[in-house]
């Protein structure tokens, strides 16, 4: 494996590196847990890697509370997420990280890498989609544009990012104050760690004091070309009383989740199984 690396330490150096290399073939590298295995399978000739790991910009590297929500820098690692106190109120995110790879991989794999790799099996990405998070994209001219994560993924391994752009951070907007939260992440796999989801379900649902569902975010992974926000399932729940959902309601919810699933059969599991298990777990969360 042979490539040249550029390691910018400041945002200025970073933007300069992007501008300088527009005509060349370059990739970003953060924790390298996707990039290196990918290049090992297929090396790209004349590749330049713009190494983000040395970057000192706190917009990229930290998690902080701001007026509009909680901002997670693209370079924060899974371990950072797990230990951050602001993020504990999102069990969906914490559980996604806990289900992620192993302690070793979690300590280097970044949130930004998970999003930008755009795998339909990205666990943290799936949780962030359920939370209605918004991507904050840095353009080579120094400007920021924002795209909701529901629109971030355009296909297997592809995103809205252009060649002169990179992900700086994601914002989880402040949520309405909630009486109760039903939030979690279910990852289906053959073993308990080091697993690529065969199917996954991220959910974050809140109610008021009467049990009425005031917000609902659910997303599915590994059952379509991209992670998908299951909008109609969410809409179905809004306004219903969480404690009075009938068996039929639960099944309608699961049916709605399944509308976003178009799974394939591969060596890991059949489409039948992905379908069936997704329906079962969707029904089970309510």
């Amino acid at each position, binding site marked *: 494996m042979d490539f040249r690396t550029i390691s910018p330490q400041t945002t200025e150096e970073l933007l300069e590196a992007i501008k300088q290399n527009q005509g060349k073939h370059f990739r970003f590298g953060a924790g390298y847990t996707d990039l290196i295995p990918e290049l090992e399978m297929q090396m790209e000739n004349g590749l330049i890697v713009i190494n983000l790991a040395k970057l000192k910009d706190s917009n990229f590297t930290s998690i902080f509370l701001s007026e509009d929500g909680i901002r997670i820098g693209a370079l924060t690692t899974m371990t950072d997420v797990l230990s951050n106190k602001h993020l504990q109120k999102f069990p969906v995110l914490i559980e996604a990280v806990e289900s992620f790879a*192993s302690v070793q991989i979690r300590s280097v794999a970044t949130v930004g890498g998970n999003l930008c790799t755009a795998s339909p099996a990205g666990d943290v990405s799936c949780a962030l989609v359920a939370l209605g998070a918004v991507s904050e994209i840095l353009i080579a001219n120094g400007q920021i544009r924002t795209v909701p994560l529901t629109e971030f993924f355009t296909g297997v391994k592809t995103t809205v990012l252009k060649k002169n752009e990179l992900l700086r951070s994601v914002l989880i907007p402040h949520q309405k104050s909630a009486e109760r939260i039903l939030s979690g992440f279910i990852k289906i796999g*053959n073993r308990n*760690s080091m697993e690529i989801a065969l199917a996954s379900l991220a959910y974050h649902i809140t109610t008021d004091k009467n049990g009425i569902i005031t917000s609902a975010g659910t997303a599915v992974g590994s059952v379509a070309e991209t992670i998908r926000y299951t909008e109609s399932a969410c809409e179905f729940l809004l306004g219903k009383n969480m404690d009075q959902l009938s068996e039929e309601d639960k099944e309608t919810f699961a049916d709605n989740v399944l509308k976003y699933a178009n799974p394939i059969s591969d060596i*890991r599991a059949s489409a*039948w199984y992905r379908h*069936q*298990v997704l329906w*079962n777990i969707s029904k*089970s969360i309510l």
Partner: protein
Amino acid sequence: MNYNIIGKRIPKIDAGDRVSGKSVFGYDIELPGMLHGAILRTKYPSAIIKSIDISKAKKLAGVECVITADNVDTENLNFRKDHPVLKKGEVNCIRDEIAAVAAVSKEIAEKALELIEVTYVERTGIFDPLEALKKDAPQINKFSKGDNGNKNISEAFHYEHGDLAEEKKKSACIITRQYVLPKVTPTCLSPSSITANYSTVDDELTLYSSTQVPFLYQREISQVLKMDPSKIRVIQPIIGGGFGTKLDIHPFEPICALLSIKTGKPVQILFSRKEEFIHSAIRQSMVIDLTTGADKNGKFTFREVKIIKDNGAYTSWGVKTSFVIMQTFSSLYQVPACVYDADAVYTNNVFAGSIRGFGNPQATFALERNIDLMAEELGMDRAEIRLINANFPGEISGQGLEYHSCGHKPALEAVIKHSGYFTRNKKNNQGRYKRGIGLASMLHVGGGAKIYPSDGCGTTLKLDTYGYLTIITGSSEIGQGSETVLAMMAAEELGIDLKKIKVINTDTNVKPWDVGVHASRTSFVAGNSVLGALKKLKEKLSDKAAQLLNTSLEDLVFENGTIRSEKTGNSFKIDKIVRELHFKPPHELCEVSYYYEPSSEFQDKNFKGNVSSCYAFAAQAVEVEVDTLTGKVDVLHVYVGQDVGKVLNPLGLEGQIEGGVVMGLGYALSEEMIFENGYLRNFSFHDYKVPTARDIPEIHFYPIETHEKTGPYGAKGMAEAPLVPTAAAIANAVSNILGVEINSLPITPENVLKAISNKQSDQG
């Protein structure tokens, strides 16, 4: 009997080197002027080779040698001599080696492979043994003699005892099922490697090889390369896992030797992880058709077994698994009649090897599933049916296996009791998560296995003038901890500190003969050999000590590095006695040699006979929880009762038990090599799923000590056993909990959910 060292928890003597990175593995070897070898393998699992053009590869700068079948002179390899080192004219499985290169760097060697031009005419391969058995199927292996009734049967085994028809009549219940077992690989942590160093000066070939059977290896390599065996020196670097993968010679080994012979330089071949997945030995897949019967009281009456094994394109030692499988069907639990047939069938799949357990996990799976089904049909408890049929001390099985010691029943009783089988298993199981306990037993050789002209092991001991002992043993260490046990025996017998004992076991130029590390035999066979040698050494020392202490031989005690007279309390340090022998008349070294041959017998042509000195028995109870929404099976507890004869080193023993159970767990739940038309689809740890730390249940171990009279201190072989019954017990648990039949492996969430869904559609 009280021991000072035996039975104590002793860390492995090589543990420090292993954890501090000092151990030298095959991958670490680097010789001056060494070249790097690479192998061109076939593109297709079945094809005619029209031509091979190596001219461009030879011209590449840095390439020193390119070989094909056309420019080497070799005999065929392996058990049936049906495996050419380099393939000519045709290829028959995806591993097939067509050409090899030695170059000054790995990169250049690999580049050269790309320059070799091969023209193939692809053929339709045969990947299903049943297809291969059809009349109009082509002969897959052209070296097959077809002497087993079909051109594509590599080996056929037939065995029987008792009166089948009579026993069928007595049967109140007869169960017939088919069991399908997958191919799995042991994923040795250290991938395969070899470094060959041929000397053009004296025609000696040194092989740094991770073989488990150095002396058989030396002999076979000599046949393949048409060399004098004694010109071949095998040095075993630290072996990072064997599990049976290193019982057979694989073509890359003679290929590396040929490259070294041709260039006169050292050559090294290292497997990548992907190569290790595709090209190293695997556990065989098989289909087992089993019919078993029991009378109305639940006493077993007969077994009728028909097995089709996927041999793959060539025949390895793995074909001999039929032996061990036969033993389980003929002799695990008391059974008056058994008829057994097993055919190993050539296909265009990768050829099977023989992995820890040697066919026994497959056999035990089928048998123990049928036992559960018989219990169910008879309305008997699943523990009860096992207890009343358990093997017993003094039993001679239908096949002629002699159980002078037998802990089968105590092992079953231990796991039934400790798992709370009778109390916990009856819990109400209504919700999403259902729990239950499954049982299975196993029988395995415990005192070697006489399948080669000798099943023995030699030992040389050297006690130096400083009181340090060197044990030179023929046996090999592949991580199982036998070095430590041998050193413990010497420390025990001579009363010297363990730190004063060194074990040498890696060089065929130095060590005495041994058949190899397999069949759970090393502590037993090499242990008995060391004990025999120690006895001779002690006699030598005692004669001198008695003379120096002016006392009788019976009065002497070996302890704390001295030999003491019990009567007078006077003593001499051992090193002093060695010096007395060495530097004064009679001027002798304190060195002895001993060869131990187990008391077992060869089986006759009907496979009858007592093939091992003793037998190991075990039972496992496994508590599982099934998530009925996802199909995921979580194993919560594994209770292991095992007749080990005598616990020699509890720490090493527990390590083997836990490692075995984990291997059995992977076999049960998640491991499977997925082949499509002869190509392996999952060749990484990503897609081939070995259990991770978070999948490991609590493992509870109850050693049963039966004090085997032929064993060292009463011990038996134990290391394969813990893996054998695990998958069977898990499948039994899951089947019973859900009211379904799990008759194949692995028990993935998908397979479980499918079983639940099939049951629901049957009922609804």
